[in-house]
């Protein structure tokens, strides 16, 4: 058997199954958004309606806001946490275990837990009441179903900080402390060693993890469904609502939204590929 055949045989099932499903799904969504399947007459009206509606633009803006803020804060906090966990302190093992355990908690659980924790009548509001800070729930800051999507962002931070931290810890483990120690011995301050030696080495892993987080926070449905305000809706919620609307004419619009999101996702994918995939060579991780 030649290498070529061997590679084909090894890759075949994965390509046919997942490649097939992904390309068919994208293709079908594109056809449906253009009124091409079932064949009516190709037109761009769904895109015109979607792009021309203030609701879509508000939803897009909200989802970009949620994904950007969640990713930025989660990345910064995760960097700090990873550096913290690299050092020794009492209880470090415990924190490390909790970080790993968080990874196993589904997002929907986190969203509902956070709702019961930070809503205006939630556990924190009750503590504030007990401390004499507020009298009525309405006096507690609105952190859920609020215009800034704070509850949604908090959920993502809660879930994604451990995720990014674990990636960074793995990277730190492979890097070791050698380079930093050399820099320190050459007179660099602790900050300089971090800024000019460690951070550049961590950057690709951090950026790749952030891209995954951004894509997820942009495209997830159940978290904004549970914690979002009535308007504007996050893009996935708006798309699903258009898709399940009993008015069939809204379906091409739903597919149009999904194609637009896919476009953004493909841009993200190319960025991710630049950051993580080697141009050539055997290494694939």
């Amino acid at each position: 058997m030649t290498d070529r055949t061997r590679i084909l045989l090894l890759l075949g099932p994965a390509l046919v199954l997942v490649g097939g499903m992904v390309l068919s799904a994208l293709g079908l969504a594109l056809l449906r958004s253009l009124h091409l399947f079932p064949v009516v007459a190709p037109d761009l009206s769904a895109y015109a309606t979607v792009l021309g509606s203030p609701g879509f633009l508000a939803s897009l803006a909200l989802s970009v806001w949620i994904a950007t803020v969640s990713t930025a804060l989660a990345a910064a906090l995760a960097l700090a946490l990873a550096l913290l966990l690299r050092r020794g302190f009492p209880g470090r093992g415990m924190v490390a275990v909790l970080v790993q355990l968080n990874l196993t908690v589904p997002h929907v659980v986190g969203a509902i837990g956070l709702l019961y924790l930070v809503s205006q009548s939630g556990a924190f509001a009750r503590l504030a009441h007990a401390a004499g800070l507020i009298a009525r729930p309405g006096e507690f800051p609105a952190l859920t179903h609020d215009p800034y999507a704070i509850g949604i962002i908090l959920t993502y931070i809660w879930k994604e900080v451990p995720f990014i931290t674990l990636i960074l810890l793995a990277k730190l483990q492979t890097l070791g402390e050698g380079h930093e120690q050399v820099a320190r011995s050459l007179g660099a301050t602790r900050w300089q060693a971090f800024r000019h030696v460690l951070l550049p080495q961590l950057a690709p892993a951090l950026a790749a993890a952030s891209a995954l987080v951004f894509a997820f926070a942009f495209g997830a449905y159940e978290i904004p469904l549970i914690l979002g305000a009535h308007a504007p809706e996050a893009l996935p919620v708006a798309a699903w609502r258009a898709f399940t609307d009993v008015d069939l004419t809204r379906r091409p619009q739903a597919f149009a939204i999904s194609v637009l999101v896919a476009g953004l996702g493909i841009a993200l994918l190319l960025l991710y590929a630049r950051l993580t995939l080697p141009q050539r060579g055997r290494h694939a991780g």
Partner: protein
Amino acid sequence: MLRPLAALLLLTTAATADTADGEALKAMTWDQIVEEARGGTVNWFMWGGADNINAYVSDYVAGVVQRDYGITLNRVPITDAAEIVNLILSEKEAGITETGTVDLIWINGENFRSMKDAGLAFCGHTALLPNDALVNWDNPAIANDFGVPVDGCEVPWNTVQFAFAHDSAVVAEPPRDMAGLIDWIKANPGRFTYPAPPDFTGSVFVRHVFYHAAGGPEALLGPFDQAKFDEVAGKTWEILNELEPFLWREGATYPTTVTQLNELFANGEVAFSFNYDPAQFGLAVQAGLWPETTRSFGLADGTIGNTNYTLIPFNSPNKAAAMVLQNVLLSGEAQLEKARTEVWGAAPAIDIARTSPEVQAGFAAIEAHPSVVPAEELAKAALPELQTDWLTAIEQGWTVNVGN
């Protein structure tokens, strides 16, 4: 590659679909239909958010159909019937006409209209059910589902009428009509809100304001009238926008679901909740979610009532068993069981006077939950539903003019 594969899948499943042909069933006698149904399975898609309703269906109803007919009832809990209507629509688009996933759906209003208009309902079979005789089809509120003639496409299951809930320990004397409620809201800033339409419950609250602005529903009944709508809608948005600064969070945000409103009420953030089905108030108190001092009331100018139904989709593969189930649901015994306060407290869809003396005595013996305003009292001032075109126009108008 897809087409042959799909055809193959259809072939293999079609072999097990025995009572998909509705026309053949309609030509049979009831006894023949029961024979066809025996040993079948019914996938009943229904809202699954209340465990006592789930228990009534899974324990009582499923028990009866299994014992008497050998039918297996598979209750499929859903959160929104619109999604299931959409699923059936998708199936029709994909050419699935005999092997649909849904055998029965709990439905009314806009979803029913969509199914009927799109030819997704199995129609013309309801008169075959022996217990159909218990239904008073002369009552327009039963013969029409949100103004759309039922036409033998669905079987009534419950009747409901909108009511408000309040905590008598907090608000001892609630307002008694819409004008009074509006004054109350302005006098008590931040203590009232309603779910944003198209939420089902928020939408019906806005319709009460719409009726109020129109001076009553009489002029609005019948087909959609754009001129009339524009006139009344203008006044309605004015009233609601004037109220907005006095609402919870000053109207910047509205709850998205009635559950959120219930939560606000439970925690004392707002003074009122409301529901299309007042039995829900009793359930919330029983579950410990709401205070024991919860009471409920209608409005002197009336509250909106409607009927909800069960419907068999056109592509159900188990139509015979689904019909038998519909017949059981309509029986005096099953309607009495769900009317019991401790079971569900749902008002019957049948004419009690047409049932057996035992069933009638059973109904007479039911003691209402103290938190639930009796159906007879609400019925003194009942308002009809509008046709669904009006509903859609009101919901869309609200989103643009009030909820933006």
